[in-house]
């Protein structure tokens, strides 16, 4: 079976890879590119642990085929910090203890960033519904929601 040659941009860097049709973007990121920050929790789009952005849209990378991203721009958790500076969301997740086991955390951060990029001043309800596709079994979501709201506050006052 011949593989597809895909050229894409990941976190602002040009990347090329070969993949079979059946491979998802998540498979490609983890198995072909060694980017293990996106996690596989369900493979059915129900847990959000594999969240990435493709051309600025938040998606589950388990529900995107690798072949579909030719020419597209992808953002993952690995590109969230700016050099040695953590993104305010990352800092706030740490300060608020918004993670326990941490396996859902990359997906939550990518999803939360996607929200704040669109809506810098979300209500608690907006945060909760935006993040409803990201499952966390450890925290009961309380500290996650607080961390996102606090990061939004801080980002607003910084800008």
């Amino acid at each position, binding site marked *: 079976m011949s593989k597809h040659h895909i050229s894409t941009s990941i976190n602002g860097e040009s990347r090329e890879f070969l993949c079979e049709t059946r491979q998802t973007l998540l498979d490609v990121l983890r198995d072909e590119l060694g980017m293990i920050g996106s996690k596989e929790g369900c493979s059915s789009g129900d847990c959000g642990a594999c969240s990435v952005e493709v051309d600025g849209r938040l998606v589950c990378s388990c529900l995107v085929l690798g072949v579909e991203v030719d020419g597209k721009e992808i953002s993952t958790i690995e590109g969230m910090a700016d050099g040695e500076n953590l993104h305010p969301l990352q800092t706030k997740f740490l300060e608020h203890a918004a993670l*326990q086991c941490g396996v859902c955390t990359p997906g939550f951060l990518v999803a939360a960033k996607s929200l704040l990029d669109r809506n810098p001043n979300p209500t608690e309800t907006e945060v909760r519904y935006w993040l409803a596709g990201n499952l966390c079994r450890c925290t009961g979501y309380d500290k996650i929601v607080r961390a996102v709201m606090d990061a939004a506050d801080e980002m607003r006052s910084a800008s």
Partner: protein
Amino acid sequence: MDTKVKQSQGKLKWVGTRQVRPDGVDKVTGRARFGADYSLPGMLVGKVLRSPHAHARIISIDKSKAEALDGVKAVVSGEDFPDIAKEEAFIGEGPINFRYMAHNMMARDKALYDGHAVAAVAATSEEIAQKALALIDVQYEVLPHVIDVRDAMKPDAPILHDDLFTEGVTPEPTRASNIAKQVEFGRGDPDAGFAKADVIVERDYSTQPVHQAYIEPHATLASVDEEGKCQVWASSQGHFMVRAYCAKLLGLDLANIKVTPTEIGGGFGGKTLVYIEPVALLLSRRCSRPVKIVMDREEVFRSTGPAPGSHSTVKIGATKDGKIVAGYAEMRLQAGAYPGSQIGPAGMTAFAPYEIEDVKAVGIDVVVNRPKVAAYRAPGAPLAEFPVESAIDELADKLGMDPIEFRLKNAVKEGTQSCYGPVFQKIGFIETLEAVKNHDHYQTKLGPNQGRGVASGFWFNIGGESTATVNVNEDGSVVLIVGSPDIGGSRASLALMCAETLGIDYKQVRPLIGDTDAIGYTFLTGGSRVTFATGLAAIEAAKNCIDDLRKRAAILWDIDVSNVEWRDGVAHPVDAYSDEHEPMTLKQLAAQSAKTGGPITGHIALNAEGAGPGFGSHVCDVEVDPETGRVEILRYTAVQDAGRAIHPSYVEGQIQGGVAQGIGWALNEEYIYNAEGRLDNPGFLDYRVPVCSDLPMIDTVIVEVENPNHPYGVRGVGEVPIVPPLAAVANAIEAATGKRLADLPMSPPKVLAAIDE
């Protein structure tokens, strides 16, 4: 050597503060490596073939076609694993029987549930492995199955195990049945007690099995070399447990197995067992290449966990002045395909929060054609305390008493004899009830279709074996090595206690979880034991390190060690020598360690006893849609005695997480089996764990009634918070609708049916 350590009395510098966890940056940047994130050169993909039948005799397994497929390197089934004799042991989450565990890992003569492993392959790619599974020819003789615990107890029920005879009953049964065991706890004479009661409530209750639903599926990587040396990377709650089970189930020398803990993406009790680790090891041994097995979500639901479901009858009697005089509970628990549900803890916890002189709790362990149950947060307690806390509410209502006052009148306290026997030492149950009573949440008004419920919960907490080493680096920083996998931020709490004891900066302590070759035996992470027991080890190791530090200062000052005191991270000569020597910091002592005897270190291995029991009391407000039966959680407040919160944020997090799981258990989580006995909802779409928009903020109040058996007063906190929500929600729904729901989950169709009754 006796330790001379002086702590600034009452003023703790690190304990009780909210520091950033040491592993935090790795986890917010995607660097942290969980089970599925490990790879080795030449690694193969392992996959497990699972039974599509709920109950079937395995007539034959033909592996030849799969073995012949290009890229397939090994195929194994039950016959390739050693036959294990029945042997009870206690090395993991509870008493287990190795024969059952072996058969649960890989079916032998019978497949006992949909999802039961029957064979496994290792291949060069995922696709080839999948194809190979389809080429394994398994001939089954499908047998009648039984899913419901009440059906399984009937005399004509399909029998899962021909050699299973009920234990704990007289006379000893002569016929095999699905009833594995009966236990009972209590004191006094319930019949006499009920005769004294003015009001009695009695009702049947049921709870559904619920999965721990950790977000990270089970994953392992195993590598066996030509010499037989085994290495395993596993996401588990205890790598020593993995080592012990793998050795036992494969008949290997423990000494030949090294298990490295990966980061673990949630466990809640469900990762206190092995499912795939021995399989990966055997596959690897067959082809001398590393084999990685990662379960998918469907496999997780079909073959791991859950907590048992239950059917219970609970009866409680009280006098009209509000004193509980008698209690009786009979709880029938679904063990899954093999015996071993948590009937012991269920029987002991059911009435534990209350002082009742005449009380009895019976637990019955029943096998059914479902996955074998595993521990899940306070295992046994939620399903036992839900009926009792519901009945307490009902009684309070009948007596016209406030449910908190009624509980206060009957609450156990220091010196009370528990319903399961022993007398309670220092506990903080009453304090949690008082805190609820005085909380503003308890005073606020409610609107139409809204209701408020309260409920309490108890869990023992445990100690156990832990090892810890403190190594001082030459720059004065410290590495703390422990053997407890960190599932909820324990590295932070352990580092805090280590820093506090040594008197150095928290950031100077780097905690590390050692593999099975790097640190001494440590019991698994569970039972809310790590902050207590491994915490105790971290403190004792730090104290031993202080002894070493004092010795080094004594050498440098050329005085006897008894004349050196350790205060806030600094060695001080006692008064008589204070003019001659300047105090020395840990950093200064570390810099000179080469000339005083080499590296400075402290080590301890202990078996911690004296875990302090935990109590919590919760209050929950709901609104019920009278036309659809949908329940919305409007507000939730959880109060818990934590003994002392080492890292308050993670204590709150444990409480909030437990509450969310309890709400899921109460409202929507359930297993749905079809007529063929196949699981119909093995995914997060239809196994409905609470999502972010389902919940309000979960307010927490930490009460601190210190555990006298721990230097900082720690009690375990992880287990208790899942116990009260089941009844708190049920009691709130009753308050909103006037209908008492006794069957979980209280999903919209059930609530609507109750309203429309």
